[in-house]
């Protein structure tokens, strides 16, 4: 197989695995995770095979035509950016599948869970590797849908259902905004592939639609990456089982927005709008996320808010766009995926083994869970930006990017130091507080986690260490190609563990000092934050509830207005529209018939029959009692039968006579049994509009018929039947031949309709009066039982 076919296989393999996961889990139990983990391992190995090429500065594209007439293809783009993401997704995915095996051991729906996780993995991989816009959008929404399924996994709880719906509404809505943005890019450039878009940067930035496209794309990216004020769905998403939080809501999916911004940076970036909006929202998210994290005592919620803060930092760095900022963003993205994934899994282990993840109810676990403690500490050191971990390198580069002395950089540097110090405090609160101090009684007796649980976080923590120690290799394979892809031009990252005396180091030291102060005063800080938040009172999370409730009320109000439940209202609307269509269309398009020519040489008996029909019609309307109405109905029906007879349609005439007789008989039978109101008594204020509508409809149909008969007649079909009735179907009566031979199947359908109507009538008649009510009572009684 060639590389393209293998890449296609790697893209589709997770979906195949998702199909078989439930079956495998039924037979193998939680050990199915070992087998299923082979899938992400295989894709990881496949994509790692591109590393030498990518490190050499090449870009690999491939794919297949999808809808060539619309210039849409199923194609992928592998460069430093997408390769890094693909390796993170499949690498961490492997560990998450294993971790899920242990975390949900014995859960009745573990197979379903693994299936969702693998489905997500496939979607996320497709998202970052997509070259075509449409493919990116499809995978983008697929990640939203799988995220919905995973957050709502524990669908018995209302909180989980609410969180799932909220995430879907926010990220899915953002996806629609993104689609609109991509369509604008497509229209302006005529290009549907990211790999070709690069040369259209200037054109796009100078287009009058630039701002619209930018805002729409940001709408997608900011909702997905939980930027303030769209952040509220992310902490709620912690309702999902912990493997989901570690994988989707910290390491991969929430970075999709950042990925998109990085992908478009060479095309849309480097404009005043870009450099204003991104740092603004990024900094707001960074500071508010870090401050909200301090407020929490739940381990997962603390991590969720720091994730939000980190995403803000990444957006901020991407928006600054300077060479160091881009490199810092690349480094921090990888570092964050490693340490945050590990910390989430540690939080899951603590929850799983002790039954609690409330910081204030945990303590002294170091002797029971030494391995978990070590992993947590390693991840926290990286998160706090301390050597010798990868987080330190990332932070050095961040401060390098911010350490020029203009006012703008100084403001952002100050905010970043504040945010990082808060995150430092939270990191060590999570890594130290549950493990140190006196032993606290927990709902479950604490002991060390099984191998399936600690393997994942341990590997991630070790990676954070080894990437830093072998920074040269990490930069050559990952950081430099990724920075080059974000910047759109070749870049080489050189920063290493060896610190250089300068502004960055001073900022690091300041962060460390403030962080330690924050850590020591965490309880006081938390109380202050709680007070502030209580004072504000309202947040976008409550706003979401208000929005959904308002939407529902609005929908109900609209529906009640349109669906009044009154038949005469529906009828009025229908006929009014018919009249408007029939009368307005010919006027608008100049299709009114010529003045009608009422032939004077019509035989007297024909006019008489027509007059009888009209008289019958008006008698139906004016009848004072129902018997008169029924008889008059018969009169107009028989008059129509005579008209058919006069105009060469004896078959119609006979049928019409039969049917009209039957109608009158049945109608008389039914109506005499009921005590109905004898005549039509509408008040005048109803009569007038009703007759206006009726007249308009009548006029419309009359004009329509005049116009139609005034046009030349195409008799092709009639001639065909006239010609072949005898020679092919051996029948002399053309009408009968059409019905039983040429259109025999239609007639069969008609017979079926009549038969079904007959059956329906029979069952209605046999159903005794009041049995409907009794049936309803019975089913209600059954429900009570």
């Amino acid at each position: 197989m060639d590389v393209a076919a293998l890449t296609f296989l790697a893209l589709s393999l997770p979906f195949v695995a998702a199909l078989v996961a439930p079956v495998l889990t039924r037979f193998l139990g939680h050990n199915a995770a070992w087998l299923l983990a082979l899938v992400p391992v295989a894709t990881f190995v496949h994509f790692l095979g591109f590393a030498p090429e990518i490190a050499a500065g090449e870009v690999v594209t491939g794919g297949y035509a999808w809808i060539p007439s619309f210039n849409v293809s199923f194609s992928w783009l592998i460069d430093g950016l997408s390769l890094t993401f693909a390796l993170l997704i499949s690498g961490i995915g492997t560990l998450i599948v294993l971790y899920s095996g242990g975390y949900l051991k014995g859960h009745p729906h573990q197979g379903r869970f693994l299936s969702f996780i693998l489905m997500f993995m496939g979607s996320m991989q497709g998202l970052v590797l997509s070259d075509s816009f449409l493919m990116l959008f499809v995978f983008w929404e697929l990640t939203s849908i799988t995220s919905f399924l995973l957050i709502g996994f524990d669908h018995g709880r209302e909180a989980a259902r609410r969180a799932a719906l909220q995430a879907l509404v926010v990220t899915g809505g953002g996806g629609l905004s993104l689609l609109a943005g991509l369509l604008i890019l497509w229209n302006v450039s005529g290009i549907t592939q990211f790999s070709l878009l690069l040369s259209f940067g200037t054109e796009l930035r100078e287009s009058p639609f630039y701002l619209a496209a930018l805002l729409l794309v940001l709408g997608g990216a900011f909702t997905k990456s939980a930027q303030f004020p769209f952040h509220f769905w992310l902490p709620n998403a912690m309702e999902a089982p912990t493997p989901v939080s570690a994988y989707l809501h910290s390491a991969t999916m929430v970075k999709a927005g950042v990925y998109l911004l990085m992908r478009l940076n060479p095309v849309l970036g480097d404009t005043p709008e870009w450099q204003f909006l991104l740092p603004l929202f990024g900094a707001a998210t960074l500071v508010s996320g870090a401050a909200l994290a301090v407020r929490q005592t739940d381990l997962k919620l603390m991590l969720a808010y720091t994730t939000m803060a980190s995403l803000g930092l990444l957006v901020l760095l991407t928006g600054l766009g300077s060479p160091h900022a881009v490199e810092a963003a690349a480094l921090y993205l990888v570092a964050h995926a490693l340490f945050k994934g590990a910390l989430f899994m540690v939080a899951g282990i603590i929850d799983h083994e002790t039954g609690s993840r409330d910081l204030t109810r945990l303590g002294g676990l170091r002797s029971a869970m030494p391995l978990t403690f070590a992993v947590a500490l390693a991840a926290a050191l990286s998160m706090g930006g301390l050597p010798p971990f990868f987080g330190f390198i990332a932070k050095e580069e961040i401060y390098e990017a911010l350490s020029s002395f203009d006012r703008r950089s100084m403001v952002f540097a100050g905010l970043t130091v504040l945010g990082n110090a808060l995150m430092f405090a939270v990191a060590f609160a999570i890594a130290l507080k549950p493990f140190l101090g006196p032993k606290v009684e927990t709902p479950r007796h604490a002991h060390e986690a099984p191998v399936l649980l600690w393997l994942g976080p341990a590997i991630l923590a070790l990676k954070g260490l080894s990437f830093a120690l072998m920074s040269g290799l990490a930069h050559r394979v990952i950081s430099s190609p990724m920075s080059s892809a974000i910047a759109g031009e070749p870049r080489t990252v050189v920063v290493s563990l060896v610190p250089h005396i300068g502004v960055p180091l001073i900022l690091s030291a300041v962060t460390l000092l403030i962080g330690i102060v924050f850590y020591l005063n965490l309880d006081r800080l938390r109380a202050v934050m709680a007070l502030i938040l209580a004072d504000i009172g309202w947040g976008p999370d409550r706003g979401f509830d208000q929005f959904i409730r308002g939407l529902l009320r609005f929908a109900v109000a609209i529906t009640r207005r349109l669906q009044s439940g009154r038949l005469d209202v529906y009828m009025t609307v229908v006929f009014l529209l018919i009249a408007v269509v029939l009368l307005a269309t010919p006027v608008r398009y100049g299709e009114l018939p010529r003045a009608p020519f009422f032939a004077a040489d019509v035989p007297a008996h024909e006019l008489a029959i027509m007059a009888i029909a009209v008289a019958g019609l008006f008698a139906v309307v004016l009848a004072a009692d129902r018997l008169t109405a029924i008889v008059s109905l018969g009169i107009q029906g028989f008059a129509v039968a005579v008209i058919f007879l006069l105009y060469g349609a004896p078959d119609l005439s006979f049928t019409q006579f039969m049917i009209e007789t039957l109608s009158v008989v049945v109608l008389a039978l039914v109506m005499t049994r009921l005590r109905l109101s004898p005549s039509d008594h509408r008040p005048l204020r109803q009569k007038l509009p009703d007759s206006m509508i009726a007249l308009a409809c009548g006029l419309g149909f009359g004009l329509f018929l005049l116009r139609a008969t005034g046009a030349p007649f195409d008799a092709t079909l009639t001639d065909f039947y006239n010609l072949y009735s005898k020679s092919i179907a051996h029948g002399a009566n053309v009408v009968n031949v059409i019905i039983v031979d040429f259109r025999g199947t239609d007639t069969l359908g008609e017979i079926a309709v009549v038969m079904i109507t007959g059956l329906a009538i029979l069952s209605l008649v046999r159903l005794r009066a009041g049995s409907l009510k009794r049936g309803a009572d019975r089913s209600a009684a059954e429900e009570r039982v």
Partner: protein
Amino acid sequence: MEAWFALLVGIFFTVAVYLMLSKFIIRVLLGVAVLGNAVNLLIFTGGRLTRDVPPVITAGADALGGPAANALPQALILTAIVISFSFFAFLLVLAWRAYEDLSTDNTDEMRVAEPVKEPMPPLGY
């Protein structure tokens, strides 16, 4: 001749629509019956009018030659008459049963499916 028929069809539709706009179920049914005739006449006239000569091939001839009524709309109408009758009969029985169960022939009072004071749908998640 078509002008006279257009006038007739217009009157048929006017009466049918007027009856169907009533609040009383029997009036609506009468309107449905008239509407069937109105539509049949519309199709019939649309296929052009020919007096007296039915579309029947004379003995000895292989095809229909010379002026005869248009067979195609007749075939359509033949089907339509039967279908509209079964439809009418079904509606009639339905109205009768509705009257027996609800003791009213006023459509405004037939509110089982769409009650006047319908409660709000649940507001939770």
